[in-house]
């Protein structure tokens, strides 16, 4: 026997130890790797094994044999199918910050009433299980201490648990923060519980049977003990019981809380799929051993507390182990369930009823409301325990809760797997199920004189001991609930918001969001709009947090990004205030512009991003279709022409790589924006074109970084595939024709040169003959003339005719140059050709003093005609020398550019007048004074270079307002052939 003080101090010490574990975890003293280790998650799920598992299960095995395994096997089955059954719930709860079943129902069925109804029913349904924990601990203390009044023990235990529940879980205002401390503490609690349970079993086994061999011998000698275990399997209740435990396990608020709300590592769910069943297997293995040990030792007392009796067989330490195991199971379950239920009550009962503005004091107010609700839930549990009294077994209390929580299963299955389910179906189903639960289970257990004969006959329940036939009520009520749920869902309409939420929750579909336009245009508008319901500080904090979660800039104005911000805010506020209040605030203060449903388009960009995430989950036809989609998408993306896809509302939904390259604006910046928000000059060009009636603009000039670029624009409406379907947007194709235009100009220039050449040949021929005649006549006149004056005049005539002849010769040369291109010949050394040109020029007295520098490397060879290239260099060097002072050098250098050679001829002269720059290579264009140049030199050079498959351009001025550089690009000899 222990004294009450001893036992109470053990409870306080145990809870203080748990609090210490939570505290050191929250302070970061434990490494994150350990805290997030899957084993911690698995052990924290051990909260399922409450005091009912430690004490009640043995009593259940005593009465119902192997049926006790249903309690352990049911939840094991759920977790073994975790990737299919639990992963979708985890994905939903973590994506939309849903912390309870009520949150999930309010979110899915878009109904505050659904949340409130779920909360009230869950609270009512869970009270018996919470009272069971209180009763188990109080009665175990009573057994250990011999106290006469377990009620006062229960009161002190409830007070202690209330204090610790507040300390554990209500230190943050919101459920958004994961309570790492709580998770680790509950994991440690499970570990202690299991170790204590196994130890007391082993101690009992050895103290009574001297080990497993002794047990086997005893079983051989007492076949009745085994038969009592097997016998209940024959009555056919096994199926319904395992089904009941299978489905109710996850719906219970403490399991939902630990499995989903406090999940620190989604991957750990995979470990839990085998870890939790293993953990429960170990516990379940102990139960028949404890039962047989107690039977063999012929212990007194209720079978519910055989664990305590078996512990006592091996002394006080054994009894204390059993007490600690029970205490751990009860306290863990009470703390987590109180947290979960208080959170549900706050989100669905208290906050929606609050009419005051949610202002700066919101976080503090939430914290205190949560603390009071925790105290309230535990006070209700204590009251239920007091009212129920000690007439009921642990089994009776346990089954009341299991059947109650079972009623949420049809709604949950509908939320996850059936988009057609609606709120009316949920309400009707829940009310039906709960009415049956109250009428056929609660009232007959609490008030034994209550006997609904008609209902009992209908369910096939005998009028005695209703609790023993609870599985009939469980299956009948959940089937009725499900049938009513389906019928009402089918015959009543669903709202638009509900249909959207159904798409979000459905396991096999992506959320097909629509591109509705928001009233708010900027992030600042969001803050201003939310200031009214939340106050300026909270509004600013929530918007900043949502921007950070999304990784968006505050300057964001794209409609797509603002819609994502709205969704994120709703999600974050859901974690703070619950989905009902959050949805109401966001709907009211961040509304969409009024728009008919058929005027909006689906958010293709969002669907695509989700498809990318879900790629691995696609199989069969869906995977093939996805591959096809990817192929088409990639084709569009890699198309060498710019493509812009616009939605019906003008939002940019496609911007391919060529557009990125052309505009320098990334797809990430443009997707979801409108054309008029693009940087200049694209906003004007594309916006005007998209709105205009013209479907094709062959040439549009755009000034880009000081240079002209020419674009060709085409557009086409994207029409739905069905006849009569409206346009879904338009596609704009952008072609950069700058190079094409340059080529066209070059071609025109060459054509003009050729015409001039043909004209020049004719003119030269026609002028040549009369000029020759004039020259002959003038020479004759010179011989025959008597006077000096006539001789001088005739000499001048001869001189002028020579000049005409030179011009005519130039014209002839030019006209020949524009003929059929000569076959390109052997290698020409740039260095030698330039040297030869320099030598020729230096024979001219005008250029004798001119400094020339030839920097062309000896190995720079081009393919071509050396004589014609010589002519090019003579012309260019002569021009350069004419423009330069003698002491300023004229430089020729060459550079290799991959397969080509660039030859630069630079002078320090006065440069080319700006008015001549555009027509420099036209015939008869010269900056030299009359009589010094024909204006045919550069035109000739252009022709020759073109014949050599090269190009020439002039840059002037090149430094300080003077100097000219001619750049000739010629194919290198090595690569030319």
């Amino acid at each position, binding site marked *: 026997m222990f004294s009450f003080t001893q036992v109470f101090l053990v409870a306080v010490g145990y809870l203080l130890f748990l609090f210490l574990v939570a505290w050191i975890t929250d302070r970061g003293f434990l490494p994150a790797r350990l805290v997030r280790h899957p084993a911690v998650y698995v052990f924290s799920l051990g909260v399922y094994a409450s005091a009912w598992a430690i004490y009640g299960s043995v009593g259940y095995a005593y009465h119902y044999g*192997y049926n006790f*395994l249903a309690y352990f*096997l049911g939840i*094991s089955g759920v*977790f*073994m*199918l975790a*990737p*299919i*059954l639990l*992963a979708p719930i*985890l*994905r939903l709860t973590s994506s939309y910050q849903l912390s309870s079943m009520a949150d999930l129902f309010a979110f899915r069925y878009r109904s505050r009433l659904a949340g409130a109804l779920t909360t009230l029913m869950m609270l009512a349904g869970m009270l018996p299980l919470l009272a069971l924990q209180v009763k188990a601990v109080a009665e175990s203390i009573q057994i250990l201490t011999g106290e006469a009044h377990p009620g006062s023990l229960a009161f002190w235990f409830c007070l202690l648990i209330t204090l610790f529940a507040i300390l554990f879980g209500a230190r943050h205002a919101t459920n958004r923060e994961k309570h790492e401390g709580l998770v680790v503490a509950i994991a440690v609690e499970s570990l202690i519980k299991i170790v204590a349970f196994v130890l007391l079993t082993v101690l009992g086994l050895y103290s009574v049977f001297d080990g497993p061999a002794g047990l*086997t011998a005893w*079983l*051989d000698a007492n076949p009745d003990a*085994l038969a009592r*275990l*097997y016998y209940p*399997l*024959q009555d056919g209740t*096994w*199926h319904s019981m395992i089904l009941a435990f299978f489905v109710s396990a996850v719906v219970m608020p403490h399991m939902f809380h630990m499995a989903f709300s406090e999940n620190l590592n*989604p*991957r750990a*769910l*995979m*470990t839990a*799929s*085998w870890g939790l*069943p*293993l953990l429960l*297997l170990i516990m*379940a*293995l102990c139960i*028949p051993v404890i039962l047989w040990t107690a039977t063999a030792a012929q212990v007194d007392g209720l079978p519910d507390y055989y664990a305590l009796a078996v512990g006592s067989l091996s002394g006080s330490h054994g009894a204390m182990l059993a007490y600690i195991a029970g205490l751990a199971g009860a306290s863990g379950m009470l703390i987590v369930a109180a947290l979960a239920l208080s959170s549900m009550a706050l989100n669905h009962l208290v906050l929606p009823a609050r009419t005051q503005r949610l202002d700066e004091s919101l976080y503090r107010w939430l914290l205190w409301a949560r603390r009071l609700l925790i105290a309230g839930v535990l006070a209700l549990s204590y009251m239920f325990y007091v009212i129920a009294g000690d007439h009921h077994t642990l089994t009776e209390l346990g089954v009341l809760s299991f059947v109650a929580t079972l009623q949420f299963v049809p709604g949950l299955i509908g939320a*996850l*797997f*059936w988009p057609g389910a609606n709120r009316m179906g949920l309400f009707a189903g829940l009310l039906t199920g709960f009415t049956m639960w109250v009428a056929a289970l609660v009232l007959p257990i609490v008030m034994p004189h209550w006997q609904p004969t008609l209902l009992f006959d209908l369910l096939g329940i005998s009028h005695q001991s209703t609790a023993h036939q609870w599985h009939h009520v469980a299956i009948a009520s959940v089937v009725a609930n499900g049938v009513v749920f389906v019928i009402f869902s089918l015959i009543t309409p669903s709202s638009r918001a509900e249909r959207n939420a159904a798409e979000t929750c*459905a*396991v*096999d579909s992506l959320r097909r969001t629509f591109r509705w336009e928001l009233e708010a245009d900027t992030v600042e508008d969001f803050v201003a709009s939310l200031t009214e319901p939340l106050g300026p500080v909270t509004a600013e904090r929530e918007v900043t947090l949502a921007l950070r979660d999304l990784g968006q800039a505050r300057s964001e104005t794209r409609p797509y990004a603002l819609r994502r911000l709205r969704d994120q805010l709703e999600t974050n506020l859901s974690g703070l205030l619950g989905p009902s209040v959050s949805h109401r605030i966001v709907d009211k203060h961040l509304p969409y512009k009024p728009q008919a449903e058929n005027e909006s388009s689906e958010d293709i960009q969002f669907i695509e991003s989700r498809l990318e*995430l879900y790629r*691995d*989950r696609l199989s069969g036809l869906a995977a093939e279709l996805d591959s096809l989609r990817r192929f088409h998408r990639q084709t569009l993306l890699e198309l060498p022409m710019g493509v812009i896809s616009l939605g019906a509302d003008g939002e940019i939904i496609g911007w391919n790589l060529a557009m990125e390259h052309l505009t320098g604006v990334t797809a990430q910046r443009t997707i979801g924006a409108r054309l008029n928000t693009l940087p200049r000059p694209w906003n004007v060009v594309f916006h005007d074109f998209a709105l205009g009636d013209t479907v094709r603009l062959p040439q549009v000039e755009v000034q880009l970084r000081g240079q002209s670029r020419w674009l060709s624009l085409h557009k086409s409406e994207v029409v739905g595939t069905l006849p009569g379907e409206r346009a879904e947007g338009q596609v704009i194709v952008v072609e950069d024709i700058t190079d094409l235009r340059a080529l066209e100009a070059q071609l025109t220039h060459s054509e003009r040169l050729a015409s001039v050449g043909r004209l020049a040949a004719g003119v030269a021929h026609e002028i040549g003959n009369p000029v020759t005649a004039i020259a002959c006549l003038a020479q004759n006149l010179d011989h025959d003339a008597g006077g000096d004056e006539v001789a001088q005049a005739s000499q001048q005539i001869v001189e002028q005719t020579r000049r005409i002849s030179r011009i005519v010769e130039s014209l002839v040369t030019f006209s020949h140059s524009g003929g059929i291109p000569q076959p390109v010949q052997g290698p020409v050394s740039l260095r030698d050709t330039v040297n030869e040109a320099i030598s020729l020029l230096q024979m001219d007295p005008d250029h004798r003093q001119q400094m020339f520098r030839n920097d062309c490397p000896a190995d720079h060879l081009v393919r071509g005609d050396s004589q014609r290239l010589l002519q090019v260099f003579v012309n260019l060097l002569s021009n350069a020398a004419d423009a330069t002072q003698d002491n300023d050098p004229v430089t020729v250098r060459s550079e290799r550019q991959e397969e080509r050679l660039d030859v630069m001829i630079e002078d320090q002269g006065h440069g080319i007048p700006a008015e001549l720059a555009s027509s420099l290579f036209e015939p008869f264009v010269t900056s030299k004074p009359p009589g010094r140049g024909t204006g045919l030199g550069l035109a000739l050079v252009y022709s020759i270079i073109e014949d050599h498959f090269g190009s020439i351009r002039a840059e002037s001025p090149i430094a300080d307002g003077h100097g000219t550089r001619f750049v000739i690009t010629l194919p290198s000899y090595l690569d030319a052939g």
Partner: protein
Amino acid sequence: MYTDRLLIIFIVGAYLLSPVIIEWWSEGGRAWYRPYMMWLVLIALSYWIGRGRPADRL
């Protein structure tokens, strides 16, 4: 309506096999640990199936 092949196989399989399993279990006699062995096999199977599953399949 969402259907997962594995889930359907499990439900149909459990329905078809359950009478056989219960019978085998009930006839255990001294081998009272039979359900635990079956349970252990299921745990090993879960471990084996989940071993190579990537995190994003969750």
